[in-house]
């Protein structure tokens, strides 16, 4: 069976899924996820990963752990991921409050446009740019991920794969946050947490003889604790200290639509930002906020060098400012699945929850083997993982289609979400998260473990240590140790197995190089 057979099978897996009210369930789930994503994105204080985290146990309860569950669940989560990005622009434009951190730059020109009575035009530009960037990024994903995976599978053996994992972790720890040292500590803590009770020996290591830890740390408890609870604790304290918005701001009038000529003029800006966002998104650990900043800065520099008499300056309501930001942050969402699907390495918080879903349901192990022809039971059979990958690509394009068709209309309706006070919303999110953990683990110990990791996530944020290297190292720790064990055994217990092959040596040199280079970053 060739690649095309897998593409068709993946497409059919989506369109021929069990119908509900005559509509394939996967399509419906992408739609629901997308609408929820826009709503969550438009709500300051909430973010796509939060909704993904809370939805996952409910989705697993509905669809179970069979292979048929993967596409509806992943379709819903992908819908949230994409919807949240465009939703973030709504309060940024209407209320000068970014719904998601990556929409901060949208406030700079979006809100001035809204104040001039051009809110509808600003929203339309944001939607058009976001949908364009998203589509471009998905096309790059479909083209690049299989080739990258095939290259990895063909040229990398166990020592090289171990070195590649080390390089990815070093890169993530170095580029996230303002301090390389703190990023590396965060990564070390994540590796340590992954080691608890996971050894090969009968004795459960590092458990301090606590039966509650004998099964290891529940993966959802650690991830939701550090990423969601930690953020909720910090946001609530900011409100307590009067550092966060206490009352919802005044809404501006939604009027003044954009014309087609308006949008055509912005296509070069959108194109440049989409390329920047896609390149940034493909690198693990570098998120959509940096992509949005780079896209905006690049467009601003160009606008300053070649001023346009028909357009106001950046910061005073330039449509190019909105277009550059929204195209860049939206084009991260497709590209960040390149390292997920081809290497099994999550690049950001949204990708973490996609991997968590794949891991919880089973039947799909993201990584280089996904795109192997002949990965089925015999040479002529389909590789079910490759079919699933093309099914995932199909759901992404369906979400794109929804974005182009109903996204713009729906995003104008959800401006009201900004009026919900954070002090009331976040405690509800917290109880939802703890309940989600409990229904998965059925143990109050898991709730306490989640709270422990919540406090850890809070402390990390307060001392300026990014929690993302912790989470990614926690997810990859088991895989890294297993690959290293196999590589050590396969090379005849060679202690220098990471340095003997040229490719592994280059990866290790790059890992050291990226840390050394990042140390040269100016201290803020």
């Amino acid at each position: 069976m060739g690649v095309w057979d897998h593409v068709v099978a993946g497409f059919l897996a989506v369109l021929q899924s069990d119908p509900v009210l005559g509509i394939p369930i996967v399509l419906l789930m992408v739609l629901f996820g997308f609408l929820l994503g826009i709503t969550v994105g438009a709500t300051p204080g909430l973010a796509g990963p939060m909704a993904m985290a809370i939805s996952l146990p409910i989705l697993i309860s509905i669809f179970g752990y069979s292979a048929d569950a993967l596409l509806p669940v992943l379709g819903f989560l992908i819908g949230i991921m994409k919807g949240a990005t465009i939703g973030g622009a709504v309060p940024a434009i209407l209320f000068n409050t970014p719904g998601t951190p990556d929409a901060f730059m949208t406030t700079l020109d979006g809100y001035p446009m809204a104040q001039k009575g051009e809110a509808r035009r600003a929203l339309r530009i944001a939607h058009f740019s976001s949908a364009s960037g998203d589509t471009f990024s998905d096309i790059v994903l479909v083209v690049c991920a299989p080739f990258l995976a095939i290259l990895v599978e063909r040229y990398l053996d166990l020592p090289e794969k171990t070195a590649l994992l080390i390089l990815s972790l070093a890169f993530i720890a170095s580029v996230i946050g303002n301090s390389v040292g703190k990023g590396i500590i965060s990564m070390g803590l994540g590796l340590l947490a992954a080691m608890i009770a996971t050894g090969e020996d009968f004795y459960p290591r590092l458990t301090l003889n606590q039966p509650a830890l004998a099964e290891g740390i529940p993966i959802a408890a650690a991830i939701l604790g550090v990423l969601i609870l930690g953020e909720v604790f910090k946001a609530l304290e900011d409100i307590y200290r009067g550092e966060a918005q206490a009352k919802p701001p005044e809404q501006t009038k939604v009027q003044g639509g954009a014309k087609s000529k308006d949008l055509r003029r912005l296509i070069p800006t959108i194109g440049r930002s989409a390329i920047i966002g896609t390149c940034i998104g493909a690198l693990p650990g570098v998120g959509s906020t940096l992509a949005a900043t780079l896209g905006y800065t690049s467009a601003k520099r160009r606008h300053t060098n070649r001023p346009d008499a028909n357009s106001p300056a950046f910061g005073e309501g330039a449509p190019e400012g909105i277009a550059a930001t929204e195209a860049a942050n939206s084009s991260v969402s497709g590209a960040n699945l390149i390292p997920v699907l081809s290497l099994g390495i999550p690049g950001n918080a949204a990708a973490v929850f996609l991997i968590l879903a794949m891991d919880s349901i089973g039947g799909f192990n993201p990584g280089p083997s996904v795109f192997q022809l002949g990965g089925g039971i015999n040479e002529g059979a389909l590789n079910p993982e490759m079919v699933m990958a093309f099914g995932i690509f199909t759901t992404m394009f369906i979400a794109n289609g929804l974005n182009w068709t109903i996204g713009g209309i729906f995003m104008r309706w959800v401006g009201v979400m900004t009026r919900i006070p954070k002090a009331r919303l976040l405690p509800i999110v917290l109880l939802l998260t703890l309940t989600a953990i409990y229904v998965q683990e059925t143990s109050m110990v898991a709730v306490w473990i989640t709270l422990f990791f919540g406090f850890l996530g809070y402390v990390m944020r307060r001392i300026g240590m990014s929690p993302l290297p912790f989470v990614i190292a926690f997810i990859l720790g088991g895989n890294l140790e297993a690959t290293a064990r196999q590589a050590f055994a396969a090379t005849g217990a060679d202690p220098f197995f990471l340095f003997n092959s040229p490719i592994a040596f280059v990866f290790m040199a790059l890992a050291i190089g990226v840390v050394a280079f990042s140390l040269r970053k100016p201290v803020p």
Partner: protein
Amino acid sequence: MKPRASAEFWLAFFFLTFAAVLIFVWVPLDTGTGLVEKVRRKFVIGDALGPTVAAAVIAIGAVLVMMRPSEGKALTKTNLYWMLGLFALFAVSLLLMRYAGPIAASFTETGYRPLRATPPWNYIGFLIGGTVMIGGLTGLASRRLAPRDFVIGFVAALAIALLYDLPFEDLILPPNGDL
């Protein structure tokens, strides 16, 4: 020493000490096999190597923090009091969640266990604990306890309970899986 460098120094010192305790005390005492083991005349990686490498990574990070202190963010007393407040609130609300149902059912002949999957008994702990958690957190963040926040907390807890309990027979609300 500038305040920034001082905060970073103590942070790095804490993690260096933690890494040293891990490498020299915790890992040797709490793992079944050493760094490298000989199994059937072949050397294999033991269970102690992974945690030792993790500790070494933490130590390297701490040394880099000492060498290149960054913005010097540190935990303040206010942060510690905030965490203490949160912990106290969680302790109270989770204790209420755990024991409210059994206490209410102690007035029946059967006790809680046979009733733990039957409405309204299975909701009692979750609703009381959840209401206190949501109302208390809102009150803590906005610096005033208002009955309205507890009413919102009750409605939200009820909505969450119904969201999980009504459509899914196999899902168990907290704390009923432990009882």
